[in-house]
């Protein structure tokens, strides 16, 4: 076939010229921008109704706003494609003025001790006192959701990001932690042998989740990727349905009231109360800081390396002497207990739990936080969880609250196409992806490299 030989003999430059007009990247960019314009007109326009599913489409696309958005998209595209010179040069200037001081700080960061500590202290100060300036609504979001899911996501990161096991039922451990808190503080219909303070429940919840993690893990860790995912999904359903249907034990859907955090030393008592969110925030911040600190140590240790080895090539890891089953169980147990701590924190903050706090959707959402932020990277996971929990709350003011997760989904789809490694990817993970793309590695998103032997 002459056509085939022709294309194979073309140089890259020739190929670029031979590409059909509609295949040129600029037209794809136009398409993307116009779609974004349509989406924006939907997001900002009237919202849908049950009675007439095309109501919003008709309304929004018939008034002038859609034209404004499309025009805007067209303008951005035209400027970018045909008149970008003045913009890029001024952008470069702005970047130059910004980068020089930033670069200087960066250099000082690596050489001067006090700069490093100064920056860290400033950052910590913002983290600690910054939220005082937020509205009550955002403070509540920060404590009840962002802080709690940060903890859960950091735990899930151990399982999926470091050990490479896909867990779709991670909220099950969160539920176990929350119900442990309810049980040991005497909130459930069944009474514990001794009623304990919330803080004393934490080690018990950790142990319970460790045991649950090992019980789930031991028989299933032989399974690879997809099969393990299904098992964890099933585990979640079991825990959820048990919480829902064993009303006499768990309180079921009507839920139970749990004591909030308090300290009672006899001579001195302190109670966290809902009037002020900040003490709750500081407590959770301390939890997160401790967990992150411990996990960073773990990542750069023998354990973190062994997890990476297992993720990359289980066969090679085993013949190098790594006890793969033990390390996988360890990841499962450590992740589960972190999630359990988050569960205790949640129950002791909100003061009320019912089975509907632990639906499967949450497991999936937490997974998406981890993947969005960057599997295996602690800064990435922290960012991913914070951003994706914040986003739906932020959208509340702009779109129909029922539609919020739709936009979250769209964001994830776009993200996975253009930046599958996540916002702040881990170095190891990114390299694995690059190698897989270059065909030199066997790494896929989750499972270990499939064993080839010859």
């Amino acid at each position: 076939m002459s056509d085939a030989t022709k294309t194979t003999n073309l140089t890259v430059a020739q190929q670029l010229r031979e590409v059909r007009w509609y295949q040129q990247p600029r037209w794809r960019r136009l398409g993307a921008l116009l779609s974004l314009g349509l989406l924006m007109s939907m997001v900002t326009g009237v919202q849908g109704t049950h009675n007439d599913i095309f109501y919003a489409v008709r309304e929004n696309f018939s008034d002038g706003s859609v034209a404004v958005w499309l025009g805007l998209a067209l303008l951005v595209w035209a400027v970018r494609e045909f008149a970008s010179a003045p913009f890029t040069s001024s952008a470069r200037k702005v970047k130059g003025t910004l980068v020089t001081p930033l670069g200087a700080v960066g250099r000082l960061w690596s050489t001067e001790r006090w700069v490093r500590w100064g920056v860290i202290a400033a950052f910590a100060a913002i983290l600690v006192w910054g939220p005082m300036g937020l509205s009550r609504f955002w403070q509540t979001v920060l404590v009840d959701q962002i802080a709690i899911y940060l903890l859960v996501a950091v735990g899930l990161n151990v399982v999926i990001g470091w050990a490479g096991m896909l867990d779709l039922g991670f909220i099950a451990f969160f539920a176990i932690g929350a119900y442990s808190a309810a049980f040991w503080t005497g909130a459930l219909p069944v009474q514990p042998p001794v009623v304990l303070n919330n803080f004393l429940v934490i080690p018990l919840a950790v142990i319970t989740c460790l045991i649950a993690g090992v019980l789930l893990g031991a028989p299933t860790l032989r399974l690879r990727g997809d099969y393990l995912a299904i098992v964890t999904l099933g585990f979640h359903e079991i825990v959820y349905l048990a919480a829902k249907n064993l009303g006499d034990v768990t309180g079921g859907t009507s839920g139970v009231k749990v004591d909030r955090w308090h300290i009672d030393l006899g001579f001195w008592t302190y109670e966290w109360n809902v009037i002020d969110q900040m003490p709750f925030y500081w407590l959770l911040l301390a939890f997160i800081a401790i967990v992150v600190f411990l996990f960073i140590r773990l990542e750069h240790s023998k354990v973190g390396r062994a997890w990476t080895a297992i993720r990359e090539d289980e066969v090679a890891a085993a013949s190098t002497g790594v006890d793969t089953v033990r390390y996988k169980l360890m990841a499962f147990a450590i992740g589960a207990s972190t999630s359990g701590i988050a569960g205790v924190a949640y129950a002791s903050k909100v003061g009320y739990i019912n089975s509907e706090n632990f639906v499967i959707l949450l497991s999936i959402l937490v997974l998406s936080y981890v993947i969005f932020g960057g599997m295996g990277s602690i800064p990435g996971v922290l960012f991913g969880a914070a951003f994706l929990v914040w986003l739906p709350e932020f959208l509340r003011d702009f779109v129909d609250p029922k539609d919020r997760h739709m936009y979250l989904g769209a964001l994830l789809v776009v993200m996975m196409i253009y930046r599958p490694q996540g916002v702040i990817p881990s170095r190891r993970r990114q390299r694995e992806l690059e190698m897989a793309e270059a065909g030199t590695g066997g790494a896929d998103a989750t499972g270990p490299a499939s064993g080839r032997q010859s």
Partner: protein
Amino acid sequence: MTTDVRTDGGSAGTTATDNGDLVLDAAGVTLRFGGVTSLNNVELRMHRGEVLAVIGPNGAGKTSLFNSLTGAYTPQEGRITYRPSQGGEHELLGRKPHLVSRLGVSRTFQNIRLFGALTALENVKIAAETRLKAGPVSIMLGLPNARKAERDSDRKAHEVLSFVGLVDKLNELAGSLSYGDQRRLEIARALATDPQVLLLDEPAAGTNPTEKLELEQLIRRINRDLGVSVLLIEHDMRLVMSVADRVMVLNFGKKIAEGTPSEVQQNPAVIEAYLGAVAEEDTAAVAETIAAHEAAETDADTDDTDDTDDSAGGSDGPGKERE
């Protein structure tokens, strides 16, 4: 069986070739995959401190033998006894791979299996620290024993990497090293577990002549300086002849010959296995043909695409096509 287990307590024997001092002693090993019998009643007697080469056409079962020795495969029949220098006897057949490695039998892979996204140093550290006692809790709390374990594994890894000549590439990604360096890094990773027996699966495949010479030196040093017994699968006859003390030949999963390199080269069964014809001619010419055939085969082997057995060798090898 002589049970003189404590012959030379401590130091791995250097030239012990008396029949009693077997570090690996396998008999009747039979491994089947459905209808395929990749190992058929194979016997292996490896003396402490020797370099034993395993040769045979592609598909003869050499890698299967390695996999059986290291726990990756579990043969249906047979026994594999390992006798470490500090005494005792261990059955390797059916033992989990990481336990085999901890006992002191370590291996490399025919198709390099490094942890590509980790640095050379990290690759070796993983192997160096498998026996160190430091649990996740003491690591998280930064306890002294965890710090010591980290320091020890670092020192060990540096030591091993300088032994194989890779110290200047400590922080390079394993996946971005040259082919020869990757082979050496795999050997370093295997050595970091402090093995008494090292199994090398075609370590020279895909390396250039200079790298081959270096590899030859390295195998000698591993054997002499570290006192490690080496089991070597290799297609390059020149390399085999120069480093191996003894050679065993596999064909169709059966051991067809065993002896010194020159004995094996003259063995009619071996010549037949390699040439597919009974050739009782000038042995020098035969040896040359074998070398040429093997060189061609090795070249074909370097790329991972499996269409090996090409006609480059000129003679039609009787060895089965690989998978």
